[in-house]
């Protein structure tokens, strides 16, 4: 199936409806009733708000079938085919950055992320890209760790920073 805006509208509406049902089920793990003696259960608010979400998505689905919304009649591609790679590569590289942050630490991940991203999308020289990729984590470290005393995740690379901390404190 070609992913047109019309198709995307119904797919997203169905996913959101399923999410609403899942939220209702999850909320029902807490008490969802409300009595004067016991007050509102912890699940009361999220449950009924999720019911509202479900109703909204059902109306959106109904509007799709009756072609009453602009998106339900739009047969253009959902994402511009020429811009596909920008969106997908960006999302995947961000996933890589966050995964890397969790395991090898943010400073090492930043070097790889910036190098890859700039090499892929910019037309700058290798020298510029290398300097930029190395300088950004250094500036980030100085700002957060030295100036603000906020420790960013370092993962398995943490021991590498001990000598720098010894110098700082």
């Amino acid at each position, binding site marked *: 199936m070609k992913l047109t805006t019309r198709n995307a509208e119904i797919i997203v509406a169905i996913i959101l409806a399923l999410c609403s049902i899942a*939220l209702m089920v999850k909320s029902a793990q807490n008490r969802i009733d409300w009595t004067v003696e016991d007050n509102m259960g912890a699940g009361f608010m999220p449950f009924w708000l999720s019911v509202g979400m479900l109703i909204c998505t059902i109306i959106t689905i109904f509007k799709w079938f009756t072609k009453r919304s602009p998106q339900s009649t739009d047969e253009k591609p959902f994402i511009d085919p020429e811009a596909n790679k920008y969106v997908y590569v960006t999302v995947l590289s961000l996933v890589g950055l966050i995964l890397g942050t969790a395991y090898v630490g943010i400073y090492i991940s930043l070097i790889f992320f910036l190098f890859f991203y700039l090499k892929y999308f910019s037309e700058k020289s290798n020298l510029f890209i290398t300097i930029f990729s190395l300088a950004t984590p250094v500036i980030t470290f100085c700002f957060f760790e030295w100036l603000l005393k906020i420790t960013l995740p370092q993962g398995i690379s943490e021991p590498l920073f001990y000598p720098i901390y010894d110098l700082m404190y």
Partner: protein
Amino acid sequence: METFLLLMNGIGTALVPLNLGLLIFGCLIGLFVGAMPGLGSVNGVAILIPITFIVPPTAAIIFLAAVYYGAMYGGAISSIMLGIPGASTAVATVFDGRPLAQKGDAITGLTAAAVGSFVGGTVSVILFTLFAPPLAKVALAFNAPETFALMVMAFATFVGLGGDDIPKTCFSILIGLVLSTIGLDLISGQPRLIFFGIPGFLHGVNFLVLAIGIYGIGEMLWTLESTKGAVQISSIKFTFKDIIQGFRNLKDTVMAMTIGSFLGFFVGILPAAGATPAALMSYGITKQLSKNSKDFGTGVPAGVVAPECANNSASTGSMLPMLTLGIPGSPTTAILLGGMILWGLTPGPLLFTQQPEFVWGLIGSLYIANFFTLILNVALIPAFIMVLRIPFAILAPVIFVLCVTGGYAPTQSIHDVWLMLLFGVVGYVLRKLDYPVAPAVLSIVLGPLAEKAMRQSLIISDGSFNIFFDFSIKPIAATIMYIALVFLFLPLISVMKNKLFPKKT
């Protein structure tokens, strides 16, 4: 007359070379900290408190108040230039500030933010000077029912923030509210909506994580798709004449300034409310009352002025209960309060009589800080504009780095960074399908406040909703509630009127 003399003494204290130097330095640091996504005045003030032990208490509070003020101004810079809210207080500034920059009119956006902040700050300091003690009593009269009524009024203004598709707008509001319920239940303490048993959900969904995800990552994905990564964010030319034109473009923003300044100050003095709800409410109400309400969200100066006026006004307002009652009105003032205790001062009504130099020095410094921050902001516009001249292929990864560090910094949890990416991608998809995302962001801010106030009120009233509507029980709550209902039904009446009596073209 006595107040005037005390104020003059206070301004004199603020102009002592040490105090003035600290004030300007504080404003600069605040601007920088406020402009960094994920960091706000709280971080700036908390980090700098130890430095203040080497100077007298008056100089210390002047310095920290200047940091607080500068951060309020600074939050707007990244909102306008990058589309990422520098702080939670600047989220509403993105709605119109970012489109202004995209249209190539960032100068008007930055000027509107600077002037709005200045006006809001000045009006609030004047209100503070004249009415501090009686207003503190009003703040004390605000309990759970009144707070809930105020939140309902804020939600009522959201109706105007949505798009044409009402079910999608309602969905956006509701999903924001559901996200705000994740974590520990405020009343029973039970965990709720802890998906897959992930402990990161126990502390709830941080509002900034959603805002940075939607307006940082989502916005960048949108821009990357529309520009194919090839062009800059907008074409920018910059001359002195453009700044003058930027000031001229603000001539139609008097209403926004008035609403932002007064509403911001009032919401600011209420304990537990603060500058973020003030800015959001101010934006919503200004939009609803504006003749050009349909243009809001496309880049109108009033959409920048209203929240910027309100957040600066609220930041001054939140100092009022701190000084007069010893009750902090915002997280930043809670830290300032701690600082005052460490400096050996006792906040409360007696502070005005026992430490007049301290109190009036602070008030005087707020006037001076406002003036200097305006000058600094306008003078630094060329530097801010330089950001837009950076090629997009270089700017985009830098923004992503800011998003990741900004998403991590508030709670220091990698779980929040993952959530931010998820919100960014989902926000991008929903925005493409015309789901308005602003109401979700607003709901997640006000959701916890509203739920807590409503449930506390219903416990007080044994489950009776009369506590919100009966003038004989809670007159302030009832008044606000009925005003909120008017705000809620105004757009619906307008829609019905247009359908029943369509305008002839």
